[in-house]
């Protein structure tokens, strides 16, 4: 999240996401979901005779507009066998790698929730996290998706706190987690916060 009060990176900068790309073996359902259910604009489609390599299948590559110059894109590899594992494992690991889009307002987040529910998509309730409120759902391929509203802007205090948490994480788990627990890490963090407060006095 951009924050003008924090120092910027010293090297070349990234300006946002151009596209994220996934494989699909359900091209029709995928188009129906992103174009019709979500209502995203289909803005580009490429199709190619492989890439001149004998082992590269012919394919389509199509892009939906997800705002601010970003797109979500799909590859459909003609004649290849579906890979059921592409959406990743179920359970908590199944949500670890996911894609989260921005809703500009809380009203927009709620409007998305209503739209998805109305369209028959199984969608979570609005979940309140630190600084974010989010809804979660999956596309027809099983890919986990999120729409999130930034309830507040992150501040220098958030970044300073993050630095202490990560320092505590490295101290606690840097050598492999072994017998160490999240409690050990919170205790280490507590030591760091206390030391910092003592220094500031």
């Amino acid at each position, binding site marked *: 999240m951009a924050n003008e009060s924090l120092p910027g990176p010293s090297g070349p900068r990234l300006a946002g996401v151009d596209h994220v790309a996934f494989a699909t073996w359900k091209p029709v359902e995928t188009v129906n979901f992103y174009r019709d259910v979500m209502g995203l604009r289909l803005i580009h489609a490429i199709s190619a005779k492989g890439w001149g390599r004998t082992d590269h299948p012919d394919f389509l590559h199509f892009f939906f507009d997800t705002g601010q110059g970003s797109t979500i894109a799909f590859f459909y590899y003609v004649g290849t066998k579906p890979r059921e594992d592409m959406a990743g494992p179920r359970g908590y690991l199944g949500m670890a790698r996911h894609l989260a889009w921005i809703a500009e307002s809380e009203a927009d987040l709620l409007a998305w929730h209503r739209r998805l529910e109305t369209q028959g998509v199984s969608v979570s309730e609005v979940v309140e996290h*630190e600084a974010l409120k989010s809804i979660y759902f999956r596309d027809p391929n099983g890919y986990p998706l999120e729409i999130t509203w930034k309830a507040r802007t992150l*501040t220098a205090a958030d970044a300073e706190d993050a630095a202490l948490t990560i320092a505590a994480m490295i101290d606690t788990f840097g050598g492999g987690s072994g017998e160490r627990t999240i409690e050990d890490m919170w205790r280490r*963090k507590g030591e760091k916060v206390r030391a910092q407060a003592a220094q500031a006095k």
Partner: protein
Amino acid sequence: MPALYVLKVPEFRPLIACAERDPRLRTTDCGNYVRIDGDPELTIARSATGMGEALWFGSLVGGIEGRISEFDAEVIRLRADDAGVPTGDE
């Protein structure tokens, strides 16, 4: 005695406010954090904070002193360090 540091951000304000209302707990301003002390233990019930579960389970992210006796969807209970038990990280 057990203590909990809470980052002074809006989403954790209910946790701080709950501690301020609770006569068994003491709150102290501590830079970016509020330190909450309990004596002899520190107990906070989620129902007293009004916090949702997702946020509640991150309540200890600011760091703690002492040990966790109990931490589930309903209650956080911290106790003083176990006397004589080495922690290995001090």
